[in-house]
């Protein structure tokens, strides 16, 4: 960990063996993630990405550091193939390879030059820069409205699934009760049908 280069290289290694998870229920804790993913390998570290804009209502996101890149890859491909439930159903969590910018404690990339300068109002670029600022704001607004729409869709889907689930559940309960109180048997007799006894 001597030079910045070495430190950065070590960090990049860490990125490679880390998986990014999202769509995690807010109830999920460190330990849940750990246990859930321990079937794929050794979990070294779990770190939730804090959401400073609480209003966003997106699920939790976490960075899970595994022992080696292979395990991380295995998680990504496994979870891409089979829906993986964590502390709830039926919305699966999602896993992607982690990216450098996701880490809070990342070291600065060595050799990067940053500079800044104040533009004078008479600078030919001033207008363009102003436009760029407006564009940035517009983009941010676009993103937030898209997020809103996405959340709306999620809510709708959840509702719809809930309805379907309830209806299904009701149906099963009805069948249960029909069998339990002997109605099924009576009806079978009435219509001269044979039904198995082991109902």
């Amino acid at each position, binding site marked *: 960990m001597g030079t910045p280069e070495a430190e950065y290289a070590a960090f990049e290694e860490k990125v490679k063996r880390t998986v990014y998870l999202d769509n995690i229920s807010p109830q999920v804790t460190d330990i849940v993630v750990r246990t859930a993913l321990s079937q794929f390998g050794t979990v070294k570290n779990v770190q939730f990405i804090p959401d400073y804009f609480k209003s966003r209502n997106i699920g939790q996101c976490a960075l899970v550091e595994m022992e080696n890149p292979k395990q991380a890859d295995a998680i990504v491909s496994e979870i891409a193939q089979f829906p993986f439930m964590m502390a*709830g159903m039926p919305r699966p969590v999602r896993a992607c390879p982690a990216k450098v910018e996701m880490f809070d404690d990342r070291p600065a990339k060595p050799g990067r030059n940053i500079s800044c*300068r104040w533009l004078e109002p008479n600078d030919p670029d001033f207008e363009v820069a102003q436009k760029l600022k407006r564009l940035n704001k517009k983009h941010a607004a676009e993103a937030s409205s898209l997020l809103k729409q996405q959340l709306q869709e999620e809510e709708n889907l959840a509702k719809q699934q*809930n309805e379907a689930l309830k209806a299904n559940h009701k149906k099963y309960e009805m069948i249960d009760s029909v069998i339990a109180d002997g109605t099924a048997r009576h009806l079978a007799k009435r219509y001269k049908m044979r039904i198995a006894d082991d109902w």
Partner: protein
Amino acid sequence: MVEVETSEELEFKWGKKKGRGGRNKDVQFYESFTYDGVEYGLYDCVYLYKESEPEPEIGKLIKIWETGEKAKKVKVLWFFRPCEILNFLGAEEILENELFLASGEGVGLANLNPLEAIAGKCNVLCISKDKENPLPSAEELQMAEFVFRRTFDVGQQKIMDKIDGQIAGIDVKFMFNRMDIQKPGGVLKVDLGKNEVCGNSIESNETMALSKKNSFKEHVTLEKIGNCVDSSTQENADLVKHKPLLVEKPAFVVGLKSSDMDKTNEKGEHASNPKALLRSKVKSNEGEVRSGKVHARQVAEEENVKCTKDSVDLDNRPTKKAKIDCTIKVSNDKGKICEQRHVKVEEKIRCTKGSGELDHGQSKSKLNTSTNVVNDKSKSSDHKRMNDKKVLSSTASTLDDKCKVKNMENSLGTNKAPCKKTKLEDKATTLSNVKLPKTSQRKDFLGTNEGPSKKMKPDVKVTTLSNGKLPPPTESQNKAKNYGFQVLEVTQRPDADRRTWFKGFPWEDRMQTAHEQGTLVLLQNLDPAFTSAEVEDIVWHGFKETCTAKMIQRISNSSPHSGQALVIFKTREAAQMVVRKLDEGCLLLSNGRPLVGSIGTHSAEKKPIFFGHLVIDKLRHQMLREREMKEAVSTSHCSQPNTTEYDMAMEWCLLQERSDLVWGNLYKQQGKELRKLKAELKAK
């Protein structure tokens, strides 16, 4: 050399010829052509239109010819869009605008197409880490419509990470980026004076011979300004394209015996084909340049010269690379071993017909540098050089053929073209040989064209500053002079160390307090790659305020174009001042990002809602949950395909895919808008 043909509707013109082929030798191959006002060269990337497809296909031209029946054909090596090979991608990470080059053997690798199917040029950059591939700069990447780094083997139907060997019978070197950037007019136009169009290497050899005899008019290389500008955007930090230079003929050198000059030429000669593009790495240290002194300078050049056997290949890329280490004196007076100038030329050449000579003295300079008349050669202060360059860039842009020649004729001074990369990296300022002859004979008039600069515009890079190192003072002065503004170098602020040991309170608490006190600011439009510490540095340099910053960590649907940071200032006044200043003024960060700021908000604890986890029976679930959370093992599982749960999970996956697609499109669109606007920035 140039054959003109008009097609039915659109303007069409063949460019340079390659060999002939076919049964009756009736097929003529070409290297380039102009179609509908756009010049295409071999290995350019193009859009091809297919009627049934909504999106045009993208391919690389690997062969261009005209059949005996006058049908124009191109052979196109395809690029795949990720959506075309979705089934083979697996969990591979794909860049936003990534393409896959076709490789291997099989259907879908390459096709013959009528030339008229070409719909336009497509800017595709190779970002392979291969050492043969000159990596594009950040600016270029921003300009690029697509990038590629991997290939898709059509035979094995597999993504290949490495690009090597041959693809469709073409050496992969041609798949990489060219040293000189390919832009509209990708193949550099090299005109040799009026009477020569540099068509192939044979002719170049001729011209070389010519150039020895004739007035130097004939080896004036004219280059379109466009190309200069293009090349100036190329950013291989330590790569300077070093084109061989033109040394004026003795006849025009007053005060220097022609025999001497000849000697110089002889001495400086190396196997070279003047028309070939030489690429070199010139590393020199500006600090060594001292006025009136002879400089010891090491110029390490790595030159790649390409001359193909059949002398038809006009391409700019090297067929191979070699290194020759030698000391050359380029146009030193009297060709005497003068000293202190070590030019290390590493070059590799394969030449056609034995005439493989690289002539440093006589090869053509890409830039017409002779428009500068520098009388005082022994005093080439930095300042002077800056002036030179200014003259250079201004004159060069207005010069046309004739007046260039005229200027050349009239030029009586030492022409210097300090080839300087204005990007100051700790790698050392690269600059071309500055020739400071000191003998008396040369005092008066001596035409020495030196070191063509790769960059015409010394000013483009003003905002780039070296990491932790101060640029040479002259540089910044000049810059400041040119633009009249102060460039702030962002280095570590004074108390930067503090961050490493002072942990403070948890960020959430501090943010809450800051929000209540009005000291919380949200900064936007940062480079997402910045770290929190770098943001603090920027704030320190931009506002002279200390603060605590936190980059907001990226999540899956964060914008790739703009990063955000929350910053806590010491006082409310400071926070308001920063927001106001950012609103009224413009703090432009590297890469053309004006910083955007607003007072941050932090909504108090609110329980986040998460959709998508259903329970049948609320009561039972709540009972269960407490237990489940303790025995966490039971809460996670992979869904099996024969359950209701699986079906529902699939619905979620579908929704997720759809959202991802929408996000991807949104950011792509935003990226396009940004690129378009950023292109308007004058100082990049």
